[in-house]
Structure formats: C-alpha cells, structure tokens
C-alpha cells in the first residue's frame, strides 16, 4: 500500500492525466458526473454517486458501429474507426466497480462484444471507498464491501491522507509511474477508517434487503404474483431508472440518415418503453405492468438464473434517489416477496 498527503491530490490528478486521459466525478450545473480532468476541475469528493453510473465508460449511451452508402442497388460498408486510447477513471464507487463484473457477464460471454471488450481493456479503474454511505445505499445486500472496493486500484480518502492499493497488473503498471509521489506505507493505517464505514453500512435502512424469496421461488410463481397488478401503478414508463442504473445493459441498434450515408449506431434502450418489444403485428408486452415486471424479473430472477445466481443489482441506490414517483428495486423486491 502507498499513501499521499491529501493536499497533494491535484498533483496526483495532474500526473495521472499526463499519463493518459483522466476522468473523475465533478460537478456540472448542479449535477455530479464523470468529467474529463483539467485544471480548474474540482474532484467532487463529497458526492457519493454520480447521477449517471460509470458504465458509460465501457458501454456508452451512444456509439457508432458502422456507416453505409447506398448508390442505386449497391451498398458500401464504411467501417467505423473506434480508436480505444487508454484512459483512467478515478473515483468509482464499490457498487459501480461491482457492476462492471455483471456487465462482463453479458458482454464478454460468447459471442464477445468487441466494442465493450476493447474499452474494458483500455480503461483503468481507480475505486474510492465510501466514507459516508447514504440512506439509499444497499450494496452490502449483494456482498459488496464499501470499505474494500474492487477495481484495478483501490483508494481510501481519510483525514489527511490518500491511501492507494493496486489490485491488478493494470493497477501495478500505473502505480509504477507514480512511485515518486506515492510513498510506501503499511495497510494498517486505514483499518479504523474501514471499521467506521462498516458500522454505518450495517445501519443503512435498505441494507437488510433479503432476496431469499427470489432465490428460492419458481420463476413462474413470481411472474404470476398478484402484486405486479398493483405495484406498477405509479410507474410513469420513463427510462430514468434504466438509464441511471449501472447494470442495465439493454440496447437498441438504430440507423440515422446523415444524407450521403446511413449511420448505424447502438444506444441504450429501456424495457420500460412501450416500443421496446413492439413488432409489426403488435406488442407482446401490452401495458406498463408487463414492462415493469420484466425489468425487475430480469434483474432479480432471470439474470441470476442465467449467470450462476448473480443478481443484476449492486445496490448503488440511484433508482431509489432518482425515480420521480418513488418506485425502486428495493420496494419491488420486498413487496413481491411480501417482506
């Protein structure tokens, strides 16, 4: 483990950014998001979570795939050059870091998604432990430790010091370039800091979320639960929860007519939208009830079934905070299981 005095953080950012582009949480017009580091950008150290999750770095909201030119009956495919320069993301929380392994399950399983894979390889993730977990947090319900975040490098920001622990080869390589400003230290110094985090994390009101009903009940039985008829009523059918969710990965592939060429791009899609499954002959998910059910069945039942029991939620609490009508995954999970 290494450490650095807190007042030298900007020096560290400067150094990181000189190695490759650095992104970190920064405030922009009242909302915190990952921004490109530059002089004058302040690291939003107090913000627990960004509005959008860190999945954007590997699975951006919009990405170009190819372009086509049609001349008469002929089609020409213009490959899209997606250069993937190395980059560093600083300030990823434990929950978002855990979401990457869920996204890996989807995008790195056969057949591999090359766009995601390339970005994953190019990015180095520096996570920061959550000193003050908030009410909406429930990552511990999924076995995520906010005091011990994963990632290529983990960082703890205590009073006065930044502690730095590389965890992967990528992390080690990056650290090697920084040995002159990061001094070696022994890991014992963060112990009490971690203990405080754990004490708070255990008191969080949503952290006791119990998913044993979801684990042990048949898919068809949960699907047929009468609770679905009621619980969706407040849902607006917007895509907010899916777009801020670090684990939502559904996408649409669309064309845009640029005039001379047609551009094919991939963008996020939301199962909450009415046209998500609409076909020429009709829509198999006719009302918001089916769409609402799909979202939570997917996260809490279908995904675990297909991925060895992994639940597609990391407890970041973004949906808890953002849903305009106060619906969220905790509420749904608890009500359906009558907890």
């Amino acid at each position, binding site marked *: 483990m290494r450490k650095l005095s807190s007042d030298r953080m900007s020096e560290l950012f400067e150094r990181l950014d000189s190695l490759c582009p650095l992104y970190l949480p920064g405030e922009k017009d009242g909302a915190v998001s990952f921004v490109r580091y530059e002089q004058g950008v302040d690291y939003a150290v107090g913000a627990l979570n960004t509005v959008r999750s860190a999945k954007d770095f590997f699975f951006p909201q919009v990405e170009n795939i190819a372009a086509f030119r049609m001349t008469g009956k002929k089609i020409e495919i213009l490959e899209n050059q997606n250069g993937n320069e190395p980059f560093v993301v600083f300030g990823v929380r434990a929950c978002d870091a855990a979401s990457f392994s869920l996204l890996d399950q989807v995008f790195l399983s056969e057949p591999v998604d090359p766009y995601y894979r390339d970005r994953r390889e190019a990015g180095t993730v520096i996570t920061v432990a959550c000193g003050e977990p908030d009410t909406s947090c429930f990552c511990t319900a999924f076995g995520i430790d906010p005091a011990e975040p994963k990632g290529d490098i983990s960082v703890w920001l205590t009073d006065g010091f930044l502690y730095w622990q590389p965890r992967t080869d990528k992390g080690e390589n990056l650290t090697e370039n920084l040995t002159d400003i990061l001094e070696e230290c022994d890991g014992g110094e963060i112990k009490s800091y971690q203990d405080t985090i754990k004490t708070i994390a255990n008191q969080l009101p949503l952290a006791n979320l119990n998913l044993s009903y979801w684990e042990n009940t048949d898919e068809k039985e949960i699907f047929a639960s009468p609770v679905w008829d009621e619980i969706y009523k407040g849902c607006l059918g917007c895509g907010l929860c899916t777009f801020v969710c670090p684990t939502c990965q559904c996408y649409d592939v669309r064309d*845009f007519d*640029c*005039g001379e060429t047609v*551009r094919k791009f991939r963008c996020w899609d939301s199962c909450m939208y009415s046209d998500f499954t609409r076909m020429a002959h009709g829509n198999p998910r006719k009302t918001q009830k089916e769409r609402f059910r799909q979202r939570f069945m997917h996260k809490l039942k279908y995904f675990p079934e297909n991925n060895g029991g992994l639940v597609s939620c990391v407890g970041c609490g973004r949906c808890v905070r953002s849903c305009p009508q106060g619906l969220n995954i905790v509420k749904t999970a608890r009500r359906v299981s009558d907890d």
Partner: protein
Amino acid sequence: MPMNENGEFTPLIVAFCCNWCSYAGADLAGSGRLAYPAEVKIIRVPCSCRVNPTFILRAFQKGADGVILAGCHPGDCHYSTGNYYTRRRMTLLFSMLEYLGIEKERTRVEWISAAEGAKFAATMNDFAAKIHELGECKRLEDLRCK
C-alpha cells in the same frame, strides 16, 4: 465549411414558400429575370402553416445556415386563416431560438404575394447577404450530417 471555387463561404438557405402566394412570387421573380442567390433552395408547401417547428430545426440539422418562411399576407391566406397561425407559431419559436442563444437573424418570416416578384428577390437577396455575414451555422448543427 462549404466553399465555392474562390474560397468564399457558400451558405445553404432553405426557403419554405407557400404554394399560393410566395411560390408564385418566386415564379414571377424568375420570369421577370430578377436575380436572387442560387444558395436559396425553395421548398414548396401548401400553406405557410404547413411548416411546423420541426421542419425548421430539421433544415438546420441537415446543414441549412438560414431558414426563411414565406407566405401570403395576413388576411390573404388561400385557406383563410393559415398564416395567422403561422405568425403566432413562428413568433414564439423564433423567440425561443433566440432565448437558446441561436442567432435570431438566421430565421425569418416574410409575407410575399404572387404579385410581388420584386419583393421576393429583394427579400432573398437581403436574407442571403445576412447569412453570408453570419457565416456557417454552428449552434444548430448536427455533426453527423457534416
């Protein structure tokens, strides 16, 4: 930036012309050999009120540097009241565009009757001159269409 062979900026100007008045006005300008810039591309519409705000924004998206809407004089609409609606719509839309910081000179509405060939040519010349002055539209462009 689209240039001509002399390296001068050649804007793209879209003119939505009402079928009954302004389009005929354009015809008259043509037959009267009154010159107006070739940069002005006319789109004929049945009535100026056929033009909804998305037409205007779409024109900018696809590369227009200025959009002008020409219709019958208020009171002369072929469909009696169409251009009265146009007038309110466009006033509010242009005001909004200006509020968003988009140069207000890039949009204009003019009333040009079928008999006003000279006014048509003069308006287009004036508008094109203004757009030349402003240069390329940067604030409402879609980079994918470049």
